């Protein structure tokens, strides 16, 4: 029994409490009883990883995994956008070298991840991608939490992205996924710029949708399969890549989370009843966060104030 190798003998203090002639029997009892444990339910390595993933998701959703962003990089961003992209690229590249399985972009930054097969992944602030150490040799499978734009090179292995309960399967194409684990209903939206992908819930491949050039679709936990593909306003969906914001009937809660990630601040919404009301707004590059907050407050009849690490919106 390999499982009990560490524990081959009873505690020496225990043995002393039996008479000498009983020692052999006790030792045998100890050894044989170890085999009785081997028949209890086993846990496979993939079950461990799934369970760990669930724990991560729960901690992320409850905010316990939130890490403070890089303040210095945030300062540089306000002055030199290109420099930040370079710094972030170096950061992500070194992450790739030292921790080959995870790439994440801090709050306040946007970065591009270049994969060994030539595929590139532009990642929005706060996004995390996990991928196989053996990419691209045995598979091109990865997990996304956040928002990213993928430019996928053709390869013999399919490129598969798992995002909060959905799977996006492609060969060679360019597309955007938005899938935040803290989004209500775990909504995942996919928009294809060119090429073709399959989009389906992780537990049901037969519910797939085929998305082609300029089409988008979405899925949330209440849906059996992703929505019928529609023609996408690709320019709006991809605004984040140019540091712009486009909010199309987006809930206030979701907008505030976008702002938190992009500007690396914490925003407290003291008026929960407006959280799920929606807004539509467009902003060009380098807009100041307070401009956006002012607009939200004007429309919703609210006020905001600065706090130690961000803002508070109140009635």
């Amino acid at each position, binding site marked *: *029994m*390999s*499982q*009990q*190798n*560490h*524990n081959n003998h*009873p*505690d020496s*203090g*225990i043995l002393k*409490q*039996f008479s000498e002639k*009983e020692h052999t*029997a*006790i030792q*045998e*009892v*100890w050894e*044989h*009883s*170890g*085999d*009785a*444990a*081997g*028949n*209890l*339910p*086993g*846990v496979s390595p993939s*079950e*461990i990883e799934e*369970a*760990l993933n*669930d*724990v991560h998701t*729960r*901690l992320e959703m*409850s905010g*316990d*995994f939130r890490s403070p962003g890089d303040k210095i990089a945030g300062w540089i961003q306000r002055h030199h956008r290109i420099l930040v992209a370079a710094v972030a690229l170096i950061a992500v590249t070194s992450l790739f070298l030292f921790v080959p399985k995870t790439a994440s972009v801090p709050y306040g930054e946007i970065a591009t991840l270049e994969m060994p097969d030539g595929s590139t992944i532009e990642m929005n602030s706060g996004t995390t991608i996990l991928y196989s150490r053996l990419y691209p040799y045995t598979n091109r499978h990865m997990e996304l939490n956040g928002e990213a734009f993928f430019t996928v090179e053709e390869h013999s292995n399919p490129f598969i992205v798992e995002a909060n309960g959905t799977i996006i399967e492609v060969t060679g194409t360019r597309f955007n996924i938005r899938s935040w684990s803290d989004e209500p209903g775990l909504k995942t939206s996919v928009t294809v710029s060119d090429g073709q992908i399959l989009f389906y819930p992780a537990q049901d491949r037969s519910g797939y949708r085929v998305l082609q050039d300029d089409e988008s679709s979405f899925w949330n936990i209440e849906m059996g399969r992703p929505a019928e593909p529609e023609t996408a306003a690709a320019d709006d969906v991809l605004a984040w890549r140019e540091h712009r914001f486009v909010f199309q009937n987006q809930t206030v809660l979701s907008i505030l989370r976008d702002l938190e990630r992009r500007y690396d601040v914490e925003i407290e919404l003291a008026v929960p009843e407006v959280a799920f009301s929606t807004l539509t707004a467009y902003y060009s590059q380098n807009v100041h966060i307070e401009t956006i907050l002012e607009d939200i407050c004007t429309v919703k009849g609210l006020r905001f104030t600065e706090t130690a690490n961000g803002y508070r919106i109140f009635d």
Partner: protein
Amino acid sequence: MNQPNDQQIETWAREIRKSDRKAFDSLFRAMYPGLVRFAASYTREKSSAADIVQDTFVILWQKREQIDSNRSLRAFLYQIVRNRSLNYLRDHANETLSSDWDDLGRQPSHNPSENPEDSSTVLSARFREWISNLPERQQEAFKLSRFEGLDHHEIADVMNISAKTVNNHIVAALSKLKDEYNQYQNQSNP
């Protein structure tokens, strides 16, 4: 999988207190199978056992700053799992538990090609039966010692009793198992 040694767990505990997520992941990977097995020995279901253990790790992370360096982290985890398993049993006392344990229990664990009539398989089945017939507290102390590799101080901490009592439980359990084992041997080799 071998249980990680005490020193390794202490190192992880220190790093987790400093919010190191990698240490948390390593601890999780090392401890999860044993803790699930332990929880399932109460709930008799793998799914509820897995839930209990995952809850335990969520709590561990949320309270990481309060991890006590003078206390065994292993004991801390087993204690939470034990308490939650007992609560689970209390809350589900009047439900008939449909057990996935029995199916799993029938699978020969170490060698699937092995003949099920093999004497060692029969013997471990007997041991399972004898262990399950031990008084509850003796059984718990014995399993924590034998299957989970906890030392007597850790078991005392988990079960909220003194180390002396742990010792007594384990000695009593071994002594009963020894009697059963002797009797069994005399029957099969008259």
